[in-house]
């Protein structure tokens, strides 16, 4: 028999992690792998649709990791929001690994999508992310691992926040363990201080996500937007926006050409903003005055 090809090796390696879900689910391919779980694209034969299945990775096996995956499934099930991936089912495989079935989101990771997005489209998507995270906060859940690669932009521009594996209840912030992704962790996460974890930790994460997204913009980032990111990523939680809703509101205010709370604008910038906001009225006014002046001049002749 000929030696295994590299492609066959890859396939067999994936097979080691493949969840055996019975005849209903046809496991198609591995689509992602994290520290704790692997995510597969699966075809649901009963409902004739594609779903995603997250299962505990074979090498991550431990009762702690299994408990975390189960907790993640339950947390997601409790967070009923269009911007948070929906869980359809959960269970335990014959080999003992827990899994859950969720919506399969087609689209691109936010970081990839943002490379070709305009500033306004990017900020609009960002406010949708904020809405989803704020919805979780309203139910007492802190994500703790917000990064551009943990957020998907779907085929229709909808935004879905994924990877809630590190999420904790604000009332039960967990042990003294540093959590999150370097570059997107709030200082209180780096230190691993559980009592300091609250909604402002996600405010920092969202601010760091916005900084990363803006870095790919070809146009200069407006100063008010830079001020928003600076306030969101302040080292001291007390100096940040105190909620994700406040952060999203400031972004929306800038998009509507209104003053933002994070930025004290000079007079000339205020004039420019007011012009931008009331552009049609100003132009009509200028045209009206111009016509009146012209008529006045003609009468004088």
């Amino acid at each position, binding site marked *: 028999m000929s*030696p*295994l*090809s590299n*492609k*066959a*090796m*890859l*396939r*067999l*390696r994936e*097979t*080691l*992690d*493949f969840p*055996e879900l*019975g*005849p209903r689910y*046809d496991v198609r391919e591995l689509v992602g792998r994290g520290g704790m779980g692997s995510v597969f694209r699966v075809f649901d034969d009963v409902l004739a649709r594609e779903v995603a299945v997250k299962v*505990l*990775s*074979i*090498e991550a*096996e*431990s*009762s702690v990791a*299994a*408990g975390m995956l*189960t907790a993640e*499934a339950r947390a997601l099930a409790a967070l009923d929001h269009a911007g948070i991936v929906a869980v359809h089912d*959960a*269970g*335990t495989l*014959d*080999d*003992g*690994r*827990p899994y859950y079935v969720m919506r399969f989101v087609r689209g691109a990771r936010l970081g990839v999508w943002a490379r070709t997005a305009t500033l306004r489209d990017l900020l609009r998507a960002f406010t949708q992310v904020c809405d989803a995270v704020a919805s979780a906060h309203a139910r007492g859940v802190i994500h703790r691992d917000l990064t551009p690669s943990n957020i998907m932009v779907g085929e229709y521009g909808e935004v879905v926040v994924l990877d809630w594996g590190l999420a904790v209840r604000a009332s039960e912030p967990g042990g003294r363990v540093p959590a999150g992704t370097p570059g997107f962790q709030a200082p209180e996460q780096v230190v691993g201080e559980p009592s300091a974890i609250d909604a402002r930790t996600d405010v920092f994460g969202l601010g760091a996500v916005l900084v990363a997204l803006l870095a790919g913009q070809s146009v200069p980032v407006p100063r008010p937007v830079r001020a928003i990111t600076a306030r969101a990523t302040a080292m001291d939680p007390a100096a940040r926006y105190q909620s994700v809703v406040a952060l999203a509101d400031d972004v929306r205010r800038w998009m509507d050409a209104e003053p933002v709370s994070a930025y004290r604008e000079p007079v000339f910038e205020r004039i420019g903003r007011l012009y931008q906001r009331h552009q049609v009225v100003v132009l009509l006014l200028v045209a009206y005055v111009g016509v009146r002046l012209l008529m006045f001049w003609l009468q004088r002749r």
Partner: protein
Amino acid sequence: MNGQVRRVSLFPSTRLSLVHALASDDAHVRAIAFERVVRIYRTPVIEVVRRQWQLEPADAEDLAHDFFLVALDRDWMQRFDPARGRFRTFLRACVRDFANAEHRRAHALKRGGFARAVPVEDADLAAADADADSTFDHEWARSVLDAALDALEAECRAAGRERAYQVFRAYDVEGADLREPPTYAALAEAFGLPVTQVANHLHWTRQRFRHAVLETLRSLTASDAEFRGEVRALLGHDLP
């Protein structure tokens, strides 16, 4: 999940480690263990010396053969200390030292295929070594998977489930080389089975294949930590 997390029991833990058996006082046990280690590591050793020294395939096979003979004769494997690292890393270091010494000897005598091997310049030594390490790890993974496939085939034959093995190979081995992997429905038609039976065959064989891989890795490691490290490596997480 019903509020309970079932105890995860993926990993076989009862099989005797070949690495421990290599250090047995019983010469017969040592010989059997050595033979099994050679079975897994023969191809990685051949490939790594062939690549590092740009040898002809036949010369690389001869050198690998000599390596294992000398290793057996001088009880090299018994020197492995699990506290100092993985068995795979130890074996790779043994191969490197042996090949270097053999090259110097063959070059001095101007004899044999190895004497004609292209010497690696000092400046390229680190890169060549890293490249050889990568080859060794890759071929090791291939050997482990191959051995597990053989074990699965034997198990299927013993259980009278040859058809299950054929479905598994068609889907997860040969199917991987196709532009479009076969669907369950296509396999069902090809083997004259209901689709549910294809799913059942794959379900069973994958479980047994997973078990065979883990058994193989367990046998090639000396501790639980080393075993878990090798599982990660096999899945491609630690390999370059």
